[in-house]
């Protein structure tokens, strides 16, 4: 109960900080924190497997990739002087418009979800054993699993093709 609120607060707080940061390095790090909190929530939801891969895959792999790219690009801080050159629609006004939309969106969702008066409580028996997941993954979900392989192949090829140094990728 309490843990939920703690994790929730951490998740929301760090997420907000992610988007409030000018420095992408901090953003990445804060996001990892947020993922940690989510991982805790997964544990609360009787999903230890997801909690673990959340840490391993997400925080560990994906975020490191991000961090790597940030470092690679020697990512500058957001430059503000560009503001003067851009179209009026891109000035902070529209930015706020986006934020307002986000708030509206949140309100809509929250209203819909709370109004839906569905059973609050979780049913008893949680099926969360890694064995069950594994079995399901390689039987019922075998095909999607195979699809992900293609997906990753595509991502791999794509990333390689795009990120390769100029001139190296030509057919010659």
């Amino acid at each position, binding site marked *: *109960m309490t843990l*939920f609120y703690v994790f*929730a607060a951490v998740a*929301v707080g760090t*997420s907000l900080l*992610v*988007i409030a940061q*000018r420095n*992408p390095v901090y*953003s*990445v790090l804060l996001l990892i924190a*947020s993922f940690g909190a*989510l991982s805790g*929530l*997964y544990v*609360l*939801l009787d999903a230890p*497997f*997801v909690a673990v*891969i*959340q840490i391993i*895959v*997400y925080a560990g792999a*994906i975020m490191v*990739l991000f961090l790597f*790219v940030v470092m690679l*690009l020697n*990512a*500058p801080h*957001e430059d503000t002087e*560009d503001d003067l050159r*851009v179209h009026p629609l891109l000035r902070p006004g529209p930015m706020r*418009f*986006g*934020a307002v*939309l*986000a*708030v509206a*969106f*949140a309100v809509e*969702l*929250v209203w819909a*979800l*709370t109004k839906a008066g569905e059973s*609050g409580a979780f*049913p008893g028996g949680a*099926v*969360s054993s890694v064995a069950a*997941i594994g079995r*399901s*993954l390689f039987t019922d979900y075998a095909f999607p699993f195979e699809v*992900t392989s293609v997906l*990753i192949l*595509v991502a791999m090829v*794509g*990333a*390689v093709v*795009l*990120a390769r140094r*100029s001139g190296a990728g030509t057919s010659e």
Partner: protein
Amino acid sequence: MNMVAVNHYLVLSAMLFAIGAAGVFVRRNLITILLSIEIMLNAVNLTFVAFGRALGSVDGQIIVFFVMTVAAAEAAVGLAIVITLFRHKESLNPDSFTSLKW
């Protein structure tokens, strides 16, 4: 033992989703924008897990697994695109890439 209702998780995920969506707008850094999208995907993951738990099935968790794969793939391609983009202009500001318009 767990007294928190599904709705709480759902509301939380909704808030996270909205935060992620907002991040696309408020930040002018491509990396941060990609991160915001990761927040959105994570919010969805939370929903899946919560529903899975509520429905008492493992499907939710398995879907999360696939989502994570997708997120990774997207991140890879996205970052690759960001790198090519950066090579052209030495900038990560999305608003400096507006030669295609109207």
